[in-house]
């Protein structure tokens, strides 16, 4: 499958005057194909949001890309001028970030925000623009009567759907979603996700879905990447990740979600805290908290990237060499 979006060796740091640079994303390789949902899961501080910002060309100082590339259909997004980037946004690459419902201009009618965006990207015929926008409203299931309303007249869930509609109205190829439903009720969340799924099948765009809710990703994503302390520690097809996690962090993270049904069993969280990115431990960054740590090896030597044939890879010393091919 031709890759729509290719992130290679991306390393991002945050730097302030007079203070040493803090690396928040380390050497990340990820790829997204057309019509695919790639989930990126991790806890606070793992770098997933910074990754999404950089990959969509929205990273501002004090953040800066230190090395690596982000290729969208072959073009390097990071080397584009601001004007070229603006041309790309909404029409090719779109993003919906957390609490995006507040991204809508409160003093402008929703209809006008749509028309504005489309006009900027070359849809000059007003009638056509309006028709496409209304079509989008139908697809995200907002009643047409809200088309000319102001954002505050819509509920939170509807606003989020409006933002998603705006992100998709120009039929982009890639959609970045960063915790798009966290601020919403679980019932509303489920209906929005269902709607997104239907839209994806209809319009055939790729989605990078970033969230801390791993249990959600297993249900809705095709592939899932787990990030810890700025690096990808495991990546696999969603189902496979759930059934056969290879990295101890993935395993522990899976177990941190109480099941909905079944018998009540005692579960354990993960002891300790994510590491301070300014003082990363040598060797594997997860070693201090790892329940399966190999003394002497994990804390000193960087773990290798091990790959299995089903498109499953993990960065861990534990993975046996016979089953896999060390990259």
């Amino acid at each position, binding site marked *: 499958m031709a890759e729509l979006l290719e992130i290679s060796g991306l390393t991002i740091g945050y730097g302030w005057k007079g203070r040493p640079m803090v690396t928040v994303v380390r050497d990340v390789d990820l790829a997204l194909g057309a019509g695919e949902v790639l989930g990126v899961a991790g*806890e*606070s501080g793992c770098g997933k949001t910074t990754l999404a910002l950089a990959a969509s060309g929205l990273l501002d100082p004090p953040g800066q890309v230190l090395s690596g590339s982000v290729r969208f259909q072959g073009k390097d997004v990071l080397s584009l001028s601001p004007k070229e980037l603006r041309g790309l946004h909404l029409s090719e690459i779109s993003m919906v970030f957390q609490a995006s419902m507040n991204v809508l201009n409160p003093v402008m009618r929703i209809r006008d925000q749509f028309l504005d965006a489309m006009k900027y990207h070359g849809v000059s015929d007003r009638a056509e623009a309006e028709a496409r926008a209304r079509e989008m409203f139908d697809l995200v299931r907002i009643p047409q009567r809200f088309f000319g309303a102001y954002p505050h007249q819509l*509920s939170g*869930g*509807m606003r989020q759907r409006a933002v998603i509609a705006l992100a998709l109205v120009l039929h982009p190829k890639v959609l970045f979603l960063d915790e798009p439903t966290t601020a919403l*009720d*679980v*019932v*509303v*969340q*489920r*209906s929005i*996700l*269902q709607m997104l*799924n239907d839209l994806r099948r209809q319009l055939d765009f790729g989605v990078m879905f970033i969230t*801390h*809710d*791993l*249990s*959600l990703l*297993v*249900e*809705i994503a095709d592939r899932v990447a787990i990030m810890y302390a700025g690096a990808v520690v495991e990546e696999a097809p969603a*189902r496979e990740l*759930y059934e056969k996690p290879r990295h101890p962090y993935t395993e*522990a*993270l*899976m177990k*941190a*979600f*109480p*099941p*909905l*049904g*079944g018998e*009540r069993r*005692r*579960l*354990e*969280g*993960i*002891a300790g*805290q*994510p590491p301070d990115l300014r003082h990363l431990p040598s060797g594997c960054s997860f070693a201090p908290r790892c329940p399966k740590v190999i003394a002497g090896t994990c804390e000193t030597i960087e773990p290798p990237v091990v790959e299995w044939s089903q498109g499953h890879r993990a960065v861990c010393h534990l993975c046996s060499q016979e089953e896999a091919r060390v990259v």
Partner: protein
Amino acid sequence: MSRTLGRPDLPDDTEQGPVPVLDVRGLTKEYKVGRLGRQKVVHALTSVDLTLERGQVLGLVGESGSGKTTFARTVTYLERPTAGEVILLGRSLPLRPTQRRLREQRSQVQMIFQDPYTSLDPLRTVRYTVSRPLRSLGEVPRRALHEAVEELLQMVGLVPPGEFLRRYPYQLSGGQRQRVGIARALAAHPALLLADEPTSMLDVSIRLTIMNLLLDLQRSQSLSLVFVTHDLAGASYMSDQIAIMYAGHLMEVGPASEVMGDPRHPYTQLLQQAAPDPGSDVGRADRFEARGDPPDLTVVPPGCPFAPRCPQARSECQEALPQWRQVGPSHRVRCVLYG
């Protein structure tokens, strides 16, 4: 000083059986919003009846606007109820309690707050924060304070306690801050703890450690716990009993195993379907059906507040608020489907 906190010196049990630690009757809370002339009334809680036995954990589940936080705030008397009765350990709390009565109540019911980043005074050390209830409610003399605080920190897993005494909130992680909040609540030696979404602001891997801590404390100190949450799975993990709230009304109450295993109320069923469940089969997502948006609390519904969104609604649902129907020895549902 290591006596259990669960207050073994509680009121005598009556012939009818042990006195429940919490007995809420007809609890109602209304807020006025808006300016003069354009005022609306928000019906945050409407006539809630709930009982909690000693040593039990109740999971109060609902989405935002369901009234679950309002419930916690009125039971702990951070806000005064508009109507109804809150009976703690057999004693009813007056609508306008005296200062003394309020202090008594604070030493019986304590709250664990949701956001560990704003529920600790940033200018005060851990020692100060945890010692306040000991001084104000427990009248612990100054010389005994140090030891008492250390004991509490030990109980919540902040070890070695001496290291944490002098720290300020900004020097603690989210999980550690929440532990301080729990220690503070325990310092009052309450019989009942109300935890208002204590883990929703924490990282996923930390949540379970805090939930387990609460469960351990509950058992070892013979405490009763009300665990308020929007996460059905979390409630299922923690609770003996589960109560489901919607639009300020209680919809279903019963043993956790029954409510989770065989949810009766259509809203409970909807919550289950909507919650993420990686263990489920693949086609699940497509079978979900839900309509409408969360309810408007300024409008008093003529009948069941869930009716507009209910996939099984009948005409009678909008006519009058459904009565409680018993579907098990301790399992009741507010729905016409079971009458």
